[in-house]
């Protein structure tokens, strides 16, 4: 056990965690030349396509140092804010963290927030100055920033490059020398914490754990403490690039278990695994529940697929502990689920994963943040769906969630950043010069104003030189109205949105215009209207289709044309019929595509 080291790699997005992980894995011979690709650990198609890490990924390396064999468990984590729950769970399975800082970018908002997460868990921090191969690397300046931030010696900061492999040996040395070996008693009753899980269509449900005390052997009868379910450990092992079955996994190590778990619900991250015949006295303290930032309805395009969608969400949740959902129904869309997400990217990823991994075709409705409404008779309740907002006549007040936001940017862009925040109803709280040309600005902002396009706008106006992090700070009373959308006079509940009264007219107009663009012309005219209560505030018309016929249909055209029309008909099945209007999937997200 004294030769085990558990550490994670944390950083701001794109600072090079996964690339540096490649170097470590390659250097230690954990992956062969043949298996090596760029960001090997990003093994989901979605991760590779988007070039970002979505899931934490644990992998074990064997490394000999000064004649001693070591087992190093590395966990690569995502950098995007929406996946910070992945980071926090990874941190709980480690004693140390490599804090990577891109030498061309310097310290950014998630560098700080992820560092704090690690410090809360008393992790040993090893600062790494990455991308040193680039000419634009600002070694001294960024080293100073790091020294300031974590109070270390400048010598402790390891210069490295995920491209050239610079610093790899030194990093491994630091991990071994500075990260404490796990503590725990191998002879005590088994106490292992589940920090992740996944549904695999061949192997069933797989749970990943970190052992605090005791050991687990193949064939042991184990119990999941929270759910009180018992299983036999059919297979246990450790995680290399693939799973490696073992006879035994012991204290301090990270491993997996396959045990014939039937239902996704039986596995909860944060749960403790122990032995049935020699149980531990108490469960390990689990994780805090995630608080979703954004809510949206997810509905099957084909109403018959509701149960399938439920099963898919259950399985997806195994691998995405930050996803929450509960059933709801919509007049326009039938039965579906109101889901909670950590942000817009998270929402997008969930929809994509449902489509790719579970073959579901779904509609995601207009997202909103969670409000609190108080009725005139003094009752207070959560409003996670526009349709839950009480009628204005018996609503005493409605409160919207606020956040505290930290923006770090170059001093050149302070003006623009301020303008953006004020435009988003923000209140300036603080402004600190970190160095002569780097500023940290603190704002209080309504969450509803920032979840949608704030980050994109921030990046654009600062030419990429602004980073952003936020934390919820509770609710504040607000002037909110429900904006309804009508298609040919029928209200479509799935398109309703809760918005600030001052934005209503502007947004109403923009949404109508966007819908006009997204709804294909049909055999009849379609009126698209935005309304508050009974008052229509904007209107657009989708003109009727005038021509939808090919000129020629002779002997040689018939097959080709039939196939074309069959394809067209299939395409229509991806649309949702609302009244007599066919509405394509992406129209339900029209609100997000406004500029």
């Amino acid at each position, binding site marked *: 056990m004294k030769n085990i080291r558990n550490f994670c790699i944390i950083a701001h997005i794109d600072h090079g965690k996964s690339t540096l992980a490649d170097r470590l894995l390659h250097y230690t011979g954990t992956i062969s030349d043949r298996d090596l690709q760029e960001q090997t650990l990003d093994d989901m198609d979605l991760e590779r396509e988007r070039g970002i890490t979505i899931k934490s990924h644990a992998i074990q390396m064997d490394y000999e140092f000064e004649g001693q064999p070591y087992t190093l468990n590395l966990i690569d984590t995502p950098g995007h804010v929406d996946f910070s729950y992945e980071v926090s769970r990874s941190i709980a399975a480690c004693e140390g963290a490599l804090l990577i800082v891109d030498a061309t970018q310097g310290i950014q908002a998630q560098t700080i927030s992820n560092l704090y997460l690690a410090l809360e868990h008393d992790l040993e921090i090893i600062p790494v100055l990455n991308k040193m191969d680039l000419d634009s690397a600002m070694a001294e300046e960024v080293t100073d920033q790091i020294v300031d931030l974590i109070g270390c010696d400048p010598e402790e900061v390891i210069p490295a490059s995920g491209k050239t492999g610079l610093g790899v040996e030194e990093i491994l040395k630091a991990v071994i020398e500075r990260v404490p070996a796990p503590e725990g008693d191998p002879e005590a009753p088994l106490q292992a914490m589940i920090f992740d899980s996944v549904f695999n269509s061949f192997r069933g449900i797989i749970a990943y754990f970190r052992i605090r005390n005791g050991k687990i052997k193949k064939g042991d009868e184990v119990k999941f403490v929270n759910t009180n379910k018992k299983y036999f450990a059919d297979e246990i092992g450790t995680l290399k690039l693939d799973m490696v079955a073992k006879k035994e996994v012991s204290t301090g190590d990270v491993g997996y278990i396959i045990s014939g778990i039937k239902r996704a619900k039986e596995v909860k991250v944060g749960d403790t695994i122990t032995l049935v015949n020699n149980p531990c006295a108490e469960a390990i303290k689990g994780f805090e529940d995630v608080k979703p930032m954004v809510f949206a309805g997810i509905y099957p395009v084909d109403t018959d697929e509701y149960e399938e969608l439920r099963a898919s969400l259950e399985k997806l949740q195994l691998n995405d502990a930050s996803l929450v959902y509960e059933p709801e129904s919509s007049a326009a869309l039938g039965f579906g689920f109101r889901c909670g997400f950590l942000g817009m990217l998270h929402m997008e990823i969930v929809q994509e994963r449902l489509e790719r991994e579970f073959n579901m075709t779904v509609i995601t409705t207009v997202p909103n943040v969670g409000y609190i409404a108080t009725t005139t008779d003094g009752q207070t309740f959560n409003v996670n769906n526009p349709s839950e907002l009480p009628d204005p006549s018996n609503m005493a007040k409605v409160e919207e969630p606020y956040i505290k936001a930290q923006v770090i940017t170059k001093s050149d862009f302070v003006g623009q950043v301020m303008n953006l925040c004020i435009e988003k109803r923000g209140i300036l709280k603080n402004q600190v010069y970190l160095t002569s040309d780097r500023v940290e600005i603190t704002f209080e902002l309504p969450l509803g104003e920032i979840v949608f396009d704030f980050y994109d706008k921030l990046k654009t106006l600062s030419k990429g030189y602004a980073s952003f992090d936020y934390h919820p700070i509770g609710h504040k009373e607000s002037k909110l109205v429900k904006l309804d959308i009508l298609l040919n006079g029928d209200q479509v509940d799935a398109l309703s949105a809760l918005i600030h009264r001052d934005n209503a007219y502007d947004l109403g107009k923009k949404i109508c215009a966007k819908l006009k663009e997204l709804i294909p012309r049909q055999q*009849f005219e379609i009126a698209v209207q935005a309304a508050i209560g009974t008052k229509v505030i904007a209107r657009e018309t989708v003109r009727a289709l005038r021509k939808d016929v090919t000129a020629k249909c002779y002997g040689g055209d018939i097959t080709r044309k039939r196939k074309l029309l069959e394809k067209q008909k299939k395409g229509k099945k991806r649309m949702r019929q609302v009244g007599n209007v066919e509405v394509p999937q992406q129209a339900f997200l029209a609100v997000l595509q406004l500029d």
Partner: protein
Amino acid sequence: MAGIYVHIPFCKQACTYCDFHFSTSLKLADRVIDAMVTEIKLRRDEIKSPLKTIYFGGGTPGILEVSQIEKLLKAIQTHFDVHPDVEFTLENNPDDTTQLKCQGWADLGVNRLSIGIQSFSDWHLSWMNRAHNAAEAKMSIQNAIYSGITNLNIDLIYGIPGMRKESWEENLSKAVDLGVKHISAYCLTVEPGTVLGHLVNKGEEKPVDDEAASEQFEFMVDFLEKHGIKQYEVSNFAVPGSESRHNSAYWAGAAYTAIGPSAHGFTGHYRYWNIANNARYCQAIESNKLPQTVENLSRDERYNEFVMTGLRTTKGIDLERIKTNFNVDLRREFEAKMKQIIEDGSAKIENNILSLTKKGMFLADGIAADFFILEHEN
């Protein structure tokens, strides 16, 4: 009803909008024709009943020597039973429709010509890169009539970018004045891979405007009807009795044999099409192989085709027949759709026959697709 379609894969030059299979090099012509003669023999058992229609299309059959046409015809007469009252159509372009050729064709028994006039305006013709001008267009009609072939179709094109309603009206008037009994009027389509498709892609040519096209369409339907030329299919108009028997057979789901590179045939059970490459076509036929792809149609696919082609005709589709032949009760299974198109004036039902109105006809594809049945649904 049975017919034969003979595809002549040669053209003098490429029109801006055309995506048919053809070659502008006549070098291979004799070899291709010999191969086609062999193919006619190879396919002799495909159709049992006498041929009621023979159709030479292309490409441009008109650019062949009369003797080459004769060779093909002889082969057909040798291997197939030809009905005495056969409709024998030949497609050609105005510049090939000389007096001499017309006479030659007439002597062979060609009794219907389909002339690719496209327009009586020189400006439109040069925009389309056609080989003829307006004067030749008129002359070709006269030559045909003079040789005794009076059953004439002319092709016209509307919906050309920038075409005004007046110039379309002028085109139609000329056609009517010249006494043609049949007009095929096609709305210009931007096909990918054509010169026009390319220009539109590059933004150098604007695609045809829907509104203008549908206006020209509706105008044409009324205008021709006033002059005794009735619409009987989306793009086909005729003096009653002069409808194309060959094309009508396609829409009625009748069988036809196909000869020549890229030609499509239908046996009633399966469709097939020949390879669209002249040299490879010849190679295969010369070793007595049919270079064809065959596609068997499921019942649903036959139903889809029946609906798709039927709704393009003013005859419409017989709901009883659909029930018997395909076991689909349109009224029940597509109740809402049916109601909608009847209420909005796109379609009507008379004597159990569903047909599209002038308004619906220009939306025929979308309406047909709505009635489609997709395999995996059952």
